[in-house]
């Protein structure tokens, strides 16, 4: 399940990737923080994506996770548009027979998504300023 979402993300929906043999299901849910990295009060975020390439990146990341961690299933849903503090920005899940693979695959997918998915974030602050935020490489 790979999706760019324009509406609120339901993290429970990622359970759709579960199969009979799965014994571990790990979910990461990224939420809009009320403070920027520099401590400024955040009013909200705006995300945009280059959707065809974002989808391709999600599928590629999931495929790499399977190569590294074996029989795991990955779900990635990333919100775009304007979000308020407390809303879900991204949900990533990994399902596998055992917890070690599920934890590792979920962490890998989150890290790689942040590193290379063509998605951009602009923070808007309560003082009226705003800026594009780059993930550290």
């Amino acid at each position, binding site marked *: 399940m790979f999706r760019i979402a324009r509406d609120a993300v339901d993290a429970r929906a990622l359970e759709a990737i579960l199969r009979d043999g799965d014994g571990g299901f790990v979910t990461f849910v990224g939420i809009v923080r009320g403070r920027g990295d520099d401590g400024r009060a955040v009013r909200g975020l705006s995300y945009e994506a280059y959707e065809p*390439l974002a989808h391709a990146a999600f599928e590629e990341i999931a495929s790499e996770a399977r190569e590294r961690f074996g029989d795991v299933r990955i779900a990635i849903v990333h919100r775009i548009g304007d979000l308020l503090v407390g809303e879900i920005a991204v949900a990533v899940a990994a399902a596998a027979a055992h917890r070690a693979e599920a934890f590792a695959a979920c962490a890998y997918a989150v890290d790689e998504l942040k590193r290379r998915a063509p998605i951009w*974030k602009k923070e808007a602050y309560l003082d009226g300023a705003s800026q594009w*935020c780059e993930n550290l490489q």
Partner: protein
Amino acid sequence: MRVHVLAFARLRELLDAAERSLELPTGARAGEAWAALVRACPALEGEASTTRFARNGRLVAFDEPLADGDELALLPPVGGG
């Protein structure tokens, strides 16, 4: 030939457009498309070192040859998650 340019995030704001049609000599490369954009929009100057290009939905190098009707996306450093 004509290339359809898409600009995202910071680059979209600097270009003041999410899309732009660009007329280029036949056989032009991605880097020449970029140079033409910088001439039209000097605010883009200095962004080349952090910009990546996608041609028809696939990441390509600066010297990738373009064809008539291509979509060329300009991608600034990402910030998802």
